[in-house]
């Protein structure tokens, strides 16, 4: 259990883990898995968006995230050096081998939930890419610089919708606030720091998690305020575990759908 502030260590009394042999592989895997899983969730909106423009927007964002995931997982496979391609990593790992944050795997919910989740993630992702793009790992910095440009459009989209929903009708306000309340306790995990992060820092990917969390909170609270939404007063404890492979019951169902074709027909091409 931990304080409900993003940036605070999520598991101060948790088990101490020593970094695995290839910590940078694990680090890049986390980045890739976040985007692969969230991209899949976003893709569920394809054909179901509330209006045509939004259907197109959500599908485009899903594509960007999936594309970013492909490049990140390809890099992870290269760092691992065991011959695993991005496809092998995406389609042939089981649930406990996934390293995405829990917030990315939660079911799509209503449009308000989707938008608030996307907003929380976009704000985190953009700020993180800005740090990694200036970092000392050339290949990862290149992917960060590229993704940052795409995520700038994503954040503008999600933050505008947060304002519209929060400052909209009583119904849209209530749903957006419910989403903020439900999602808040999943945001701490984004700023957790562990041995993998320390090892990544040693490899040139030095992220100051406390500073990142403070920047995130300032950005998020600014938009929520304009949207007449509030940060939950008593959010309860932060929920974490995804980075260590401990997931909600939802990830298994998502993977079943995502992986079945590749696993049923290994090596197939079309």
């Amino acid at each position, binding site marked *: 259990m931990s304080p409900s502030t993003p940036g605070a260590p999520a598991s101060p009394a948790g088990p101490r883990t020593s970094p695995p042999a290839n910590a940078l592989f694990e680090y890049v895997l986390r980045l890739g898995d976040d985007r692969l899983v969230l991209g899949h969730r976003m893709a569920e909106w394809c054909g179901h968006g509330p209006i045509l423009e939004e259907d197109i927007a959500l599908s485009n964002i899903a594509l960007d995230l999936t594309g970013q995931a492909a490049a990140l997982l390809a890099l992870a496979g290269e760092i691992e050096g065991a011959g695993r391609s991005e496809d092998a990593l995406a389609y042939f790992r089981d649930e406990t081998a996934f390293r995405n944050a829990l917030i990315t795997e939660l079911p799509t919910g209503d449009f308000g939930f989707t938008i608030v989740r996307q907003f929380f993630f976009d704000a985190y992702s953009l700020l993180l890419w800005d740090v990694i793009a200036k970092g000392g790992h050339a290949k990862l910095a290149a992917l960060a610089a590229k993704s940052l*440009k795409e995520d700038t459009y994503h954040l503008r989209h999600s933050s505008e919708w947060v304002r519209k929903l929060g400052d909209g009708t009583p119904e849209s306000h209530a749903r957006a606030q419910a989403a903020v309340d439900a999602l808040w306790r999943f945001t701490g995990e984004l700023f957790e720091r562990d041995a993998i992060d320390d090892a990544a820092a040693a490899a040139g990917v030095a992220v100051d998690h406390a500073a990142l969390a403070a920047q995130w909170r300032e950005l998020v609270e600014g938009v929520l305020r304009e949207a007449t939404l509030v940060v939950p007063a008593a959010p309860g404890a932060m929920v974490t575990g995804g980075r260590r492979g401990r997931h909600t019951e939802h990830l298994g169902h998502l993977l079943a759908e995502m992986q079945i074709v590749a696993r049923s027909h290994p090596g197939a091409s079309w």
Partner: protein
Amino acid sequence: MVNTPPLSRETLFTILDAVKDPEVPVISIVELGIVRDARATDGGVTITITPTYSGCPAMHTIAQDIRAALAVYGVDEVRIETVHAPAWTTDWIGPEAREKLRAFGIAPPGPVDHEGGLVALTRRRQAVSCPYCGSPRTELKSEFGSTACKAIHVCLACRQPFDEFKPL
């Protein structure tokens, strides 16, 4: 196998200039800045490309089209390398290609007017002129359009909805 001299970089670029973007078929992958390098290597050629958007589904088609275009010139050993740095930008699209976009009904991208990195959320993009009637009185409908690289606008003067190749 016929022993021919290796193709020059210039010749390779000329061949690749015939490969059009599958989603915007009026401009080539060279004009878009997707082709970063082309060189003859042992027994074949190596083409270096960079993706426009990370999730652009056209990149696979583009790789196939590159192979097909070179096969016409008897080049069957084609190695395609992908680079991510420097990140692709619409600033690489030249004036001639911008005019082709406009004539096709797509508003060309404005200049990327910031240094990269974080941009203020409140920042507004420059107005986009209608590619049909030229009016600057247009309205952004959505920053996500029919392909990853486009936004949807509507012209308030001639009432025509149109795509914009958005600055990246």
